[in-house]
């Protein structure tokens, strides 16, 4: 099985979706006019243009960013993480299920320019979208994972080290499906959460705040760290919370279009880990 066969089926499917009026637009991946070796988001409206769609190991960006707020039915070429993002958007009522046609691509994981699996993809165990309207299977074998990065300790030094690298460009926020607030807390004048200078404290407020906003909503797509020009490992913070929520509340974001995120609900029998007098990890 191969990308080429998947790409061929994808083009055929999209052509017929557009021809039959099932979707008005396809949001997918295509070749960039400027950069080679990476697929960029493109939209296709005419059936004959379906041949512009590509599917390969460099379809890195998260496309879920491109469909929110659209009118009319859009078809989305969705990796499993993109499909989870779409399912979350539907559960959070940011998107109408009837307005989106999910083309679930069986996924072998995406790679870096050097051909090794991206960090988020190396950790990902889902090959298939949990929610889809059509599915295109036949993905190749998964790629080799790069050498284990220092997964290790959770220390103040590690956190400070990551924060030192950040230049507060907010690309990670722009890339994340879940950061759809019209005015981010970092852009607000009132309340103003930031220190008067954009120092390490501002970065900590941004990343801890964003991690809380993504808590129980992160679909582990890795878009935030793939887009970071400074090589900040952003996901490790959010991942610890994602894992915690999964084991504490049995919740995994974006697996269906109905379940509310873990922090938007509660149960009377919730535990109190880390509370006063309870086990203080």
């Amino acid at each position, binding site marked *: 099985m191969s990308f080429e066969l998947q790409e061929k089926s994808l083009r055929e499917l999209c052509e017929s979706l557009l021809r039959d009026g099932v979707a008005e637009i396809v949001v997918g991946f295509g070749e960039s006019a400027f950069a080679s070796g990476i697929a960029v988001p493109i939209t296709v409206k005419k059936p004959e243009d379906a041949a512009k769609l590509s599917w390969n190991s460099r379809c890195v960006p998260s496309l879920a960013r491109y469909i929110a707020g659209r009118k009319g039915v859009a078809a989305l070429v969705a990796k499993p993480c993109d499909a989870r993002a779409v399912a979350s958007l539907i559960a959070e009522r940011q998107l109408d299920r009837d307005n989106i046609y999910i083309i679930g691509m069986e996924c072998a994981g995406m790679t870096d320019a050097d051909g090794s699996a991206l960090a988020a993809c190396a950790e990902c165990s889902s090959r298939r979208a949990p929610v889809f309207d059509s599915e295109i299977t036949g993905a190749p074998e998964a790629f080799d994972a790069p050498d284990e990065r220092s997964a290790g300790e959770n220390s103040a030094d590690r956190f400070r080290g990551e924060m030192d690298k950040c230049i507060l460009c907010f690309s990670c926020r722009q890339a994340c499906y879940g950061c759809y607030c019209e005015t981010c807390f970092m852009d607000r004048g009132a309340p103003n959460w930031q220190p008067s200078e954009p120092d390490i404290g501002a970065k900590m407020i941004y990343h801890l*705040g964003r991690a*809380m906003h993504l808590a129980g909503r992160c679909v582990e797509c890795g878009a935030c760290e793939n887009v970071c020009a400074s090589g900040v490992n952003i996901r490790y913070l959010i991942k610890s919370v994602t894992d*915690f929520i999964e084991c504490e509340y049995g919740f995994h974001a974006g697996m269906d279009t109905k379940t509310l995120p873990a922090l938007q609900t509660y149960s009377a029998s919730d535990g109190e880990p880390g509370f*006063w007098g309870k086990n203080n990890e």
Partner: protein
Amino acid sequence: MNAWTPVIVAFLCNWCSYAGADLAGTGRQQYPPNIRIIRVPCSGRVNPMFIIKALVDGADGVMVSGCHPGDCHYLAGNLYARRRFAVLKKLLVTAGVEPDRVHFTWVSASEGTRFAEVVRGVTEAVTALGPNKMTGGGAGEL
């Protein structure tokens, strides 16, 4: 002599813990003067950003206290808060904040003695950790 004592920001729910603090006072319970009380209408009002901001701005400790589960004036504010706090603590610990800097508890309006006990315990725990060095520098005066 060690002059340093911690500054601890305490978010107390108006309907229970704030009244519990009052009762501790009228009952002449002794507890350390290190907490700076901020009254909130419900533990559910405590935005995680309050706690993050307090720590980044140099507070040595944070405590939040609300009504016992089942007793919230707004029925479920503290039940939402309970999840939020558990998750926030996990996040802060991952970021290297010592678990003993951040405390969550429930104190009712009739638990003046318990309030004093908790504040004693929290102050002791935070004092043992020393000043908050999260952003690298020392804590400022609050």
